[in-house]
């Protein structure tokens, strides 16, 4: 089942029971670490707080990040595992295959695409992340809590990928094929962002070690509270899980010494160009009696450092797993065995390497500044870039503005009918939502979809690509829907511009909502409530609400599709949101469920 010796753990072993409860099975990745049950417990703690607990991002969103990164890392074990979990969460296979091969084609909202773009950039080449990368996330409405979770899940993805490669975990289910052309066009190497990207990028809450146990722990063990943990206080439960992992993985001297572990941390952090972690762990090695010159030498080139040959082999092994995971195999363990390392020590090395990748990704995503003035500013050097140019690690630069439909549209224009069927499937939800928004009736909307796609097909020859194909399609849907409204002499029209002032709408219901209103009802109840009340809004507000908040089109795209100016679109959007707020208030106030409000 793996490259390492395993022992049988009791079936009541709490982490395994938790995995069974949440995943339905115990992943082989964790079974493969049975020599270190304390480590499995620490990892389960991180998984519970980062992945399973749903606070800002839903489980599906997090699993999507894990799947997309596993595919980009070409890690068959993780792809298989997250594919299975997303299937269990109800995501159709077709969507999952799209996420694996190119998430941009997976029918995701622009906000979700922006989130995945960010995660892939951070996960695949963390030094390229800077404050600028948060601007599109903010524009798509992601708050600091969500962005923190995205950074954490990305770090977790790198942890799981490194570890599963290292232990040689056998996939838990029929292995999924990873297409050869997974989003991995070699992009530009951005310069090392260490200097210009001063963070932290996300907000945090001040905590004192006197009231927050993990901080007391760090102060006791390290003599200070590392900034990387201060930057995550929006999620105290995560900091707690990380503190347990630090204790279990780094501080517990069971098989490897602390100096060996710190050296691994240093070498891997340097390979990942992580100035922060190098500065912090040079300092820690210094506290353990290693001179600055020696620790610097380990970071710069451990082969030239004053180390035992066995320790150099250990660091070679950790480095190879990090920079060339695709070439890592069972034989990679042989040099360590020749030097007399036990399976327990090898497993600790693998966990330490994976955990370093976790911390490095996390630090780059948070943008935390070093706790000590760094002596080494790491930049891509030819030898390290050469290592990183391994097929499996090249960074990706994706143009978010590019229209993903250009290629299939050209194929249809060249006579390929099947490509049009793909376009229909890709955009049917968006077209449906536009039509429901306008017509206010699901059955009519489905009928009108056919007309929309037929018109689109007939006029595809005229489509010049001046707007995105999806925007063009939504405008056809919108015109189709409006024509139907006119034919049926509906009183409502999208273009009656009577009293479009802001003064016409003043909030009536001034009652505080419950802290967590979505918890008052089941997901399907919430959906029904939303759908019912959205349907009752006048068409001109309803359609804007559907396009902007549910379909998450940008202001410009929605305005273009509906043939409205931007001020009119914004004003209707706000009006729609406030009208919906009025309508939902009786359902979501503190006393909404149970007693009459």
């Amino acid at each position, binding site marked *: 089942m793996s490259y390492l010796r395993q022992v049988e753990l009791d079936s009541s072993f709490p982490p395994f029971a938790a995995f069974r409860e949440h995943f339905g099975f115990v992943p082989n990745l964790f079974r493969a670490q049975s020599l270190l049950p304390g480590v499995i417990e620490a990892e389960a703690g991180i998984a519970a707080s980062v992945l399973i607990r749903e606070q800002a991002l839903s489980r599906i969103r997090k699993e999507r990040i894990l799947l997309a990164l596993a595919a980009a890392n070409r890690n068959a074990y993780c792809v298989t595992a997250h594919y299975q979990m997303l299937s269990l969460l109800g995501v159709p296979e077709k969507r999952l295959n799209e996420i694996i091969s190119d998430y941009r084609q997976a029918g995701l909202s622009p906000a979700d695409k922006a989130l995945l773009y960010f995660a892939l950039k951070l996960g695949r080449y963390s030094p390229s992340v800077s404050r600028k990368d948060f601007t599109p996330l903010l524009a798509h409405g992601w708050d600091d809590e969500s962005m923190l979770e995205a950074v954490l899940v990305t770090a977790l993805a790198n942890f799981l990928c490194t570890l599963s490669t290292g232990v040689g975990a056998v996939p838990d289910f029929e292995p999924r094929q990873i297409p050869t052309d997974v989003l991995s066009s070699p992009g530009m190497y951005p310069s090392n962002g260490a200097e210009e990207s001063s963070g932290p990028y996300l907000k945090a809450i001040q905590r004192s070690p006197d009231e927050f146990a993990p901080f007391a722990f760090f102060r006791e063990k390290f003599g200070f509270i590392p900034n990387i943990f201060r930057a995550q206080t929006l999620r105290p439960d995560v900091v707690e899980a990380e503190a347990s992992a630090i204790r279990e993985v780094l501080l517990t001297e069971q098989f490897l010494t602390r100096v060996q572990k710190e050296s691994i941390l240093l070498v891997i952090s340097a390979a990942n160009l992580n100035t922060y972690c190098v500065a912090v762990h040079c300092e820690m090695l210094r506290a353990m009696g290693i001179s600055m010159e020696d620790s610097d030498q380990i970071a710069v080139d451990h082969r030239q450092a004053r180390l035992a040959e066995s320790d150099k082999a250990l660091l070679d092994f950790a480095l190879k797993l990090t920079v060339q995971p695709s070439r890592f195999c069972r034989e990679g363990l042989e040099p360590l065995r020749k030097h007399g390392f036990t399976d327990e020590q090898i497993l600790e090395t693998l966990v330490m390497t994976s955990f370093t990748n976790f911390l490095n990704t996390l630090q780059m995503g948070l943008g935390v500044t070093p706790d000590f003035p760094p002596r080494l500013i790491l930049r891509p050097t030819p030898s390290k870039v050469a290592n990183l140019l391994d097929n499996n690690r090249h960074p990706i630069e994706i143009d978010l503005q590019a229209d993903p439909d250009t290629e299939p549209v050209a194929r249809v224009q060249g006579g390929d009918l099947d490509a049009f069927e793909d376009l229909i499937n890709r955009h049917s939800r968006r077209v449906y939502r536009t039509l429901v928004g306008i017509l206010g009736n699901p059955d009519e909307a489905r009928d009108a979809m056919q007309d929309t796609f037929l018109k689109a097909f007939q006029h595809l020859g005229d489509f010049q690509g001046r707007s995105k194909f999806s925007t063009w399609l939504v405008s056809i849907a919108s015109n189709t829907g409006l024509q139907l409204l006119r034919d049926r002499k509906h009183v409502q029209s999208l273009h009656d511009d009577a009293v479009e002032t802001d003064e016409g709408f003043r909030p009536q219901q001034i009652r505080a909502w419950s802290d967590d209103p979505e918890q008052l009802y089941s997901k399907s109840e919430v959906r029904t409530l939303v759908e019912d009340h959205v349907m009752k809004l006048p068409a001109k507000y309803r359609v804007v609400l559907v396009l902007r908040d549910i379909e998450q089109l940008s202001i410009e795209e929605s305005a273009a599709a509906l043939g409205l100016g931007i001020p009119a679109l914004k004003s209707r959007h706000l009006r729609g949101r406030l009208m919906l707020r009025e309508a*939902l208030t009786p359902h979501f106030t503190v006393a909404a469920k149970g007693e009459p409000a």
Partner: protein
Amino acid sequence: MAEMGDYLDRAVAAEIRARIESHLAHCQTCQIVYDSAWKTVKILTDSGSFDLPEAASKSIAGKVMARIRSQQRSV
């Protein structure tokens, strides 16, 4: 009011944002309205409303393609 819309979209300049937030700190009515408006947007966004089931999408695609193919044959 226009600023409220931009604020909900997190698209206001820092100084306007600061002005809104300093007003919110003192005005309970506005606090309630803003808080519930935020929550409305979040509920709406998270609800996955008006989703088209995969099967419905496939069936519509099938019908459209059948019509296109029959038109192409008759031309």
